[in-house]
């Protein structure tokens, strides 16, 4: 009985000491939910577009046909999720007004697209490069030999070492203003006289192969950026540099009477303080929120990265 009493007393003392010292009995770590196993990529069986992506491509193509540069080729980069046998396209990045294009070639403005990818991927880090779409001025629905020479080298860096490609052609309006898309072949979509033909090409393939295309419900995650694309292009390299140099930079798009604007927020110390840069088509505005006060700043430089650093230097000087 004495032994039992001593054992109980020791246990109570140990527990009290542990409580006093703040330590606890070591608990087994909760086993984290296991992530999915690595994907083993196989040749693509199909490409799936969200309805938002489909609208962006066809509406963008239609707008291009109505534009002053309709005799040139244009295109879009496709971002999305690469699954083992399927590619899901979730975002379209336009070639941009600063593309190098003519009646028989197009080279996308990659600076604007790269910056846009940084913004879009803040919402979903799974988004990867899947491939691209470009238009042909005539009725050639298949990628050209020149396309093959470039793409066959390029696809080696993609997930699964395979890319998704589409060719846009103008087929002539069978039903003027027809609001419903049709799919005459598994790899073709047509809408209002415009047609997209889809292909896959893997590293080492001798030719493109037709790729069946399907729709699902969902957004084009980059569509809001299309309204400020000229602003993204204008500041692309400077914004890209700032994203690499400053942590937790955030972006949003706001609609103004004068048109949409791209807003960049750079956090400051203390928490809740920030520099808000509003990038309009023709001007930039700088708002500083610090210690509960907000004021407008006018840095003496129209280059957004230099203007921000001048502003930060001024704020650092005010803090002594």
């Amino acid at each position, binding site marked *: 009985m004495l032994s039992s009493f001593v054992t109980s007393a020791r246990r109570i003392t140990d527990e009290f000491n542990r409580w006093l010292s703040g330590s606890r009995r070591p608990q087994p770590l909760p*086993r984290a939910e296991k992530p999915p*196993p*690595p994907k*083993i990529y196989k040749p693509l069986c199909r490409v799936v577009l969200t309805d938002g992506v489909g609208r962006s491509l066809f509406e963008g193509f239609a707008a291009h046909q109505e534009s002053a540069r309709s005799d040139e080729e244009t295109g879009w980069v496709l971002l999305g999720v690469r699954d083992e046998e399927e590619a899901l396209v979730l975002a379209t990045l336009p070639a941009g007004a600063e593309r*190098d294009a003519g009646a028989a070639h197009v*080279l*996308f403005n990659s600076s604007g697209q790269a910056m846009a*990818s940084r913004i879009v991927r803040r919402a979903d880090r799974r988004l990867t490069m899947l491939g691209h779409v470009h238009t042909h001025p005539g009725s050639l629905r298949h990628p050209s030999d020149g396309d093959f020479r470039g793409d066959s080298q390029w696809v080696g*860096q993609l997930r699964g070492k395979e890319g998704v490609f589409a060719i846009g052609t103008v087929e002539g309006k069978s039903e003027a203003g027809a609001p419903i898309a049709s799919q005459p072949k598994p790899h073709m979509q047509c809408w209002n006289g415009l047609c997209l033909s889809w292909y896959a090409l893997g590293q080492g393939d001798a030719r493109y192969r037709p790729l069946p295309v399907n729709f699902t419900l969902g957004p084009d995650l980059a569509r809001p950026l299309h309204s400020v694309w000229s602003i993204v292009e204008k500041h692309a390299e400077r914004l890209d540099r700032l994203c690499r140099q400053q942590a937790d930079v955030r972006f949003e798009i706001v609609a103004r009477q004068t048109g949409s604007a791209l807003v960049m927020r750079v956090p400051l110390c203390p928490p809740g303080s920030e520099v808000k840069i509003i990038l309009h088509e023709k001007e930039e505005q700088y708002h500083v929120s610090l210690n509960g006060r907000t004021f407008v700043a006018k840095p003496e430089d129209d280059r957004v990265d230099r203007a921000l650093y001048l502003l930060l230097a001024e704020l650092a000087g005010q803090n002594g």
Partner: protein
Amino acid sequence: MDFRPLTETERRQLHTALRGNAEQDRVILMDRRDTSFVGMTEEVTDEEVISAIKSVPCHY
């Protein structure tokens, strides 16, 4: 520690992960309790995406 041989599926997954890590800097995830292999993250780096965007060839 579990020293059993890997199953064929586990062996293939580990091989893919190691190849992805060596060739393309893909992240390998390990169990924090025993450092065993648990998979790969689906996240893609900005550098991977931007490199692909910047190298899109001219099209004709």
